[in-house]
């Protein structure tokens, strides 16, 4: 499995922090990690051919104010990988965190990669 880089928010992060292992992930679904006070939702899509197999976005749902994004449903809309919030069902891009329904909402996105079986998040 190739390591992946995220070009969206953080370019070439200087520090990669290990958060969990591949075994902690659930295929085609999400889990949440605690990252120094932040909650990061990790989505693992082992079958993904073109895009990346691993995505890290904020677990905090801006619409409900609850930390639930990691429990949403992964899907694709118009070719873009998205996560649907489990409470009000709005969709966020897994690539850049933008909200399909409301430009006023956006999820933070982290660079994330596998390092062997370790899952690493890029922190500035």
């Amino acid at each position, binding site marked *: 499995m190739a390591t992946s880089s995220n070009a969206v928010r953080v370019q070439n992060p200087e520090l990669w922090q290990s958060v969990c292992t591949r075994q902690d992930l659930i295929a085609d679904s999400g889990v*949440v990690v*605690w990252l120094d006070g932040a909650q990061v939702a990790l989505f693992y899509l082992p079958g993904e051919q073109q895009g990346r197999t691993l995505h890290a976005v904020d677990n905090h749902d801006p619409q409900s104010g609850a930390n639930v994004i990691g429990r*949403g449903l992964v899907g694709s809309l118009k070719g873009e990988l998205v996560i649907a919030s489990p409470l009000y069902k709005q969709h966020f891009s897994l690539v850049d965190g933008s909200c399909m329904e409301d430009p006023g909402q956006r999820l933070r996105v982290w660079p994330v990669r596998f390092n062997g079986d370790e899952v690493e998040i890029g922190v500035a």
Partner: protein
Amino acid sequence: MNSIVTIAHRQKLVIVGNGMVGHHCVEQLIERGALAHFEVQVFGEERQRAYDRVHLSEYFSGSDAETLALGDAQLYGMHGVRLHLGEAVLEIDREHREVVTSLARYPYDQLILATGSYPFVPPIPGSEAEARLVYRTLDDLDAIRAAAASARRGVVVGGGLLGLEAANALKSLGLEAHVVEFAPRLMPVQLDADGGAALRAQIEALGVGVHLSRATQAIVAGEDYRYRMNFDGGEFLEADLIVFSAGIRPQDALGRSSGLDIAPRGGVVIDEHCRTSDARIFAIGECASWNGSIFGLVAPGYSMARNVASALAGEAAATFGGADMSTKLKLLGVDVGSIGDAHAATPGAKSYRFIDEANASYRRLVVDASGKRVIGAVLVGDNSYYDTLLQYVQNGIALPADPSTLILPVSDGAPSLGADALPETATICSCHNVTKGSICSAIDAGCSDLPMLKSQTKACTGCGGCAALLKQVFEHELVARGVAVDKSLCEHFAYTRQELYALVRVEGIITFEEMLAKHGRGHVGCDICKPAVGSILASCWNQPIMDPSLVPLQDTNDTFMANMQKNGTYSVVPRIPGGEITPDKLIAIGAVAKKYDLYTKITGGQRIDLFGAQLHELPDIWSELIEAGFETGHAYGKSTRTVKSCVGSTWCRYGVQDSVQMALTIEDRYKGLRSPHKLKFAVSGCTRECAEAQSKDVGVIATEKGWNLYISGNGGMRPRHAELFATDLDDETLIRYIDRFLMFYIRTADKLQRTSVWRESLEGGLDYLKQVIIEDSLGLAAELEAQMQLVVDRYECEWANALKDPEKLKRFRTFVNDKRADPDIHFVKERGQRRPIAAAELNLIPVTEEVV
């Protein structure tokens, strides 16, 4: 090229009769170019050329012979058709192929009889001169007019269609008009007793005397008027003139004298080509008898005329196979309509009737024995229903769910749930106060898909409860604007839920990946198709929803087997079948609630909901509940929820059956059944209906003899009373019907469609459903029962299954790398229990993005 010009020898065609049908035949011959082959001569007994007999009574209200005349006076001459008026054909010499008039003999190659009919005058002593008028021709009307000049009161004998026309004529001549009818009602052929009564009321209100069940014995000199009609039974009626309109007889004299076959009840016998027993002679209109019947209306006569004309023109002619005798007319200003089997003479026919005595209005709808088709109707007072009803009869259109709506008055206040029935001001989304009007404006402004509509209007972005209604309005408005509605499930599947269900069944598909690869697009799916397909797979194969291939399909509530609440915590609902619970179990629930500090509330479905559990607490909570003997209540799934019950005959002095036992049986059987939407049941032990079964998807109410089954009720946003589906069932039959009903619903419903909406959208309505479920009209019953049995046999408590498997429990971690709970979840105490803190009560949570 030389062209060979043939001067065709034109055959001689003679048409006897220049009434409406004979005239129509000439018009059709001209139109179809038949005059190239035929030299046509037409003989009319009357002085006038063909005129409109249907509107004869207008002769007395302004029309003269010329305005009643049919077609252009020059038509015949322009096309070389010779018209002999006032020249009756006296004889047909078939041997020499000539017709004989008082003036000459005319040869023919082909002959068409269109001699019509004549009024029947019963042989009553004393009926002569002005006591023996008839109502058929313009000459007859002239005679009536002459007699009326010195008359005050006129009587029409015969209360049929023409008799009432004649009464109208007498009225317009300024006479006091009466109608005498032998039958006990007016228009006995077209109307039933109630229809006749309504018509009588209307006609009497117009000042026309109506005398029913009167047989005239003799006509003698009168005292106050010129004549006296003596009825049997000693009654009498005096009048200055008497018009007979007691029916018509086919004018078949020429046929008889020339030896053509004559039907037993009169009329020249014709075949389906309108040919008589002499191949050179046709007969059309009221003088002809087809299959023993005379057709006394203009429409069948016209169609015979058309058929014969096209045959003579060398075209492929249609055959005559009888005619619809439905009629719609205005008699004395009163609408009267009669369609098909107005008397419900068909064996097994059933009727719906609407009687409005205040307005003397009457409507009857006759349906066939199966209740599926309209076969007849009677209308008095309002013919606006006629066209629709005629459509139903002629095209065999399936009846609406409630056939009576076809004849009930259309009222603004009538309850209607359709999107089209909603006014512009109707609120569709109450969260954001979005009206149907604003949805329509958005559509008009170019909004072409549902997500766009939601984002522009904010409709359905609140609680989401209006999703189905919004979709309905949206689709209806698109259709109204001529836009095709895409019924695809989502961008990944160009199929409806029903089609996907069939694919899963037929191809034995058991995973989402297989479904997507074979029938979908892409390789991910979305939050629409994944739960929909997941639900179908569960309905069909009932595998544990926590199996790895199924987990990603479930919406969050199914994934974690609990109901997510607004702050991201869950509520937990153990199954309490039938609402029956032992004190020990009650204590066990209390102990769990107390230990995990869960907010506790009794639900509407007779169970207990425990709120405020965090993700990582769910397995512990469930271990303890299962230890105490509970199973999952599936409150999180689109699946069987509860079976509510009253205590029934074991405790209640009114109960007639053990409703609790039946509720337990039903809940045990259908628990875990996944379906297009949630399923709620109830069982009441007597007709007092304390369990409110009539608001449930499946309602069961005890009777002295067994159980009555109700289906497709609903509470919620659009309450709907369940419909009585079957009565006095024994236990086994009840369960069989419910098996079939539920599986048929699962097979045919749209995604997230409750049984109520499904039932309303079901073509053929309740009757159709009864046929499928009770009479097994589709031959599906055994299959549906077997499919249900498979689901029942495979039932396993999902929580018990998950607790046995450490892999499955991996999901129930708030953080996979940390033991802590979510630090952002805060509670406050209220009324002795905790509840989620409101954003406004907590400065830690930004309130700017809150959408209320």
